[in-house]
């Protein structure tokens, strides 16, 4: 049996059993869904709404306070609004849009119609994320989330001298993350390669443009104008809040697939891939963050990236209970369960950003997934 340093190669029989055990874990979790999960997501919605009002309220009120109070209210308002946007985008929006709560039948939590407080439309997200990223996770040329077309994070991606500026691009991309995600589905590169006309691209951009304008007016015109003389207090507060959300979501998401030990795959892997193969690929292509309840909520449970990739449409609040079982199954089948503190995982991401700014060449392909495909 050939092995890599981290993952044992599974024979056909083992693979089938691994898949069956993951399926069984899913089935017993789904069978238990009910009022507890409905209550959880409603509480998250409440938290989003109340923190938004509190954050915006503090920014507004701060504009009318004397100087020392102004700074305190401005800072608290911006941070709380940032937290509200993080909760809205991650634990609420991302999970609801996955259809995790469709079983409730409540139109408010319907994955097909939910819209979130971010410049990207949920429609384009459903395509780039729910379909492409989750189906073709970490497959070069199919999963656009590998570096988002901006960064070179794996040696399999082509190097060019322009990559030397990558640490700077990475920083700018972090600050503007929501904008990058919003236009991801447009694949603007097609324009330069002559695969699409500017007019057609403009047509495809229209829904996102409408959403962007709406978000810009809300955060940088409507609420600042409400403050009257405090226009700039609210304007800058909202800017900070959006920035906090951008940097945090970027950090969490990068920790999910770009740590040192994650694997990426060639296109050939998806040919005739069984569900069990797909499970194995999700485990090898994802990495978790270890932490408690607060980290789970604030990362939208992407701290359980492995569980999320195995069960993208199971309510995320269940991942914490499923994780020990997944970890135990992985251990029995010799599959490395990639987890660590946020500091550890993100420093590995930063190293990738720096390392692959310079030329690098792929190590010999991991034989583990290749071998069993025969």
């Amino acid at each position, binding site marked *: 049996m050939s092995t890599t340093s981290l993952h044992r190669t599974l024979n056909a029989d083992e693979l089938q059993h691994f898949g069956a055990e993951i399926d069984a874990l899913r089935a017993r979790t*789904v*069978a238990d*869904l*009910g*009022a*507890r*999960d*409905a*209550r959880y997501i409603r509480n998250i*919605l409440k938290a989003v*709404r109340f923190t938004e009002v509190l954050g915006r309220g503090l920014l507004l009120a701060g504009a009318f306070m004397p100087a020392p109070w102004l700074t305190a209210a401005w800072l608290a308002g911006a941070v709380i609004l940032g937290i509200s946007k993080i909760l809205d985008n991650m634990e609420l929006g991302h999970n609801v849009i996955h*259809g995790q709560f*469709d*079983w*409730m*039948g*409540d*139109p*408010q939590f319907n994955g097909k119609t939910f*819209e979130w407080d971010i410049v990207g439309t949920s429609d384009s997200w459903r395509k780039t994320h729910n379909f492409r990223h989750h189906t073709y996770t970490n497959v070069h040329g199919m999963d656009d989330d590998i570096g988002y077309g901006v960064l070179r994070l794996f040696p399999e991606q082509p190097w060019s001298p322009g990559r030397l500026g990558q640490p700077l691009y990475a920083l700018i991309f972090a600050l503007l993350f929501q904008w990058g995600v919003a236009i991801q589905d447009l694949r603007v590169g097609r324009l330069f390669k002559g695969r699409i006309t500017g007019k057609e691209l403009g047509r495809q951009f229209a829904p996102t443009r409408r959403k962007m304008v709406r978000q810009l007016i809300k955060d940088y015109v409507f609420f600042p104008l409400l403050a009257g003389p405090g226009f700039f207090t609210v304007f800058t507060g909202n800017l900070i809040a959006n920035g906090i959300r951008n940097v945090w979501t970027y950090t969490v998401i990068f920790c999910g697939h770009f740590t040192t030990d994650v694997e990426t795959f060639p296109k050939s892997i998806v040919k005739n891939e069984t569900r069990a193969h797909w499970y194995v690929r999700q485990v090898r292509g994802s990495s978790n963050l270890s932490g408690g309840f607060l980290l789970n909520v604030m990362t939208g449970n992407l701290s359980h990236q492995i569980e999320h990739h195995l069960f993208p449409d199971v309510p995320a609040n269940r991942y914490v209970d499923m994780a020990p079982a997944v970890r135990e199954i992985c251990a029995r089948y010799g599959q490395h369960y990639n987890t660590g503190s946020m500091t550890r995982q993100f420093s590995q991401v930063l190293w990738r950003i720096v390392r692959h700014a310079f030329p690098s060449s792929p190590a010999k392909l991991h034989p583990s997934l290749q071998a069993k495909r025969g």
Partner: protein
Amino acid sequence: MSATAPASSAPPTSGPLARLVAPLIDPSVFDFWAGLVNPAWSWARPLARVVARRIEALDTVTLVLQPNRHCGKVKPGQHINVSAEVDGRRTTRSYSVTNVPGRDGRIEITIKRVEGGKLSTHLCRDVRAGDVVELGLSFGDMTLPVHPQGQWLFLAAGSGITPLMSLTRALAAQNMPVDLTLVYWVKTRAELCFVRELRALAASQPRFKLHLVLTHEADRLADEAQGFISHEQLASLVGALSGKQVFACGPGGFVDTARALTAGVARSFMAEGFTPSAPASTDPAAITTVRVQLLKSGRALDVSSGQSLLVALEQQGLNPASGCRMGICHTCVCTKHSGTTQDINTGDQDTEPDTTVRLCVSRACTDITLDI
């Protein structure tokens, strides 16, 4: 006699002010904050608040609902889809209105608890005044004509009394323009609904006659009959059927018998059955496992061809939109792209591609593809 516009219990959404602010409003955000003040307030959703709860009979409860302005009108004799959350899952069933909706728009539904019934158990046991339910489409053709006349015969079995009670009340409100006889079958006396009101109406209104029939009660009172519906029983209670307009409501088997007994004799026959009649022909040997491909959700499920698609999908953990579960409200209709389905009620097979099927009364005979 139709219902008047429901009284307002929701903020304005159609006035000039509402049109002005509408582009600024996210309905779900509005609903969240409005719902904290009054759970029946919504920007666009048809919600109704339970304002009273009455025990009507054994395992039977009447809920008085105050709809908000987004709810449609409903006429006596019609059903309305009612949705509530049971263990986190929104569950929809249709119930007959039992009152004559008046100026305040209030409607009453009378629910008999069905053993193992998710929503009926919830509505009968858990729901209290102040709770909110969502209302959906109202439907049903068993409504009053503009000028009711002639001799009418209502045949009600069990919870089949509900649409016929609202029609009886509507006729009473018009000072009984027809000669009406109501025959009402129940198993035991404790299950009789509305009995005091019906007796009082029979006493005061010479054109209204009431016959109560108990099928499973050992002793009976002077004005109670016994036994299942039969030719002899109808003859002794009602007399000649000729010239009578018959409305029957009850379980599928009861309605089939009522139809057979009155066919060709009565002037007309209208009916609603609560449970689908037994399948025309389900050869047990023909039941196999078929694959149902769901296009929108991208899933493929293996289900038994012996059950309705709705039940099969629900058993797989899906929650497709559904309502009456008897094939009349069309809430669960979806497009079938390929494969053969069979109507459970009629036995008709459908092999055409790209036709609509009602999940609740269709079974898959072959592998099929659905647009859900």
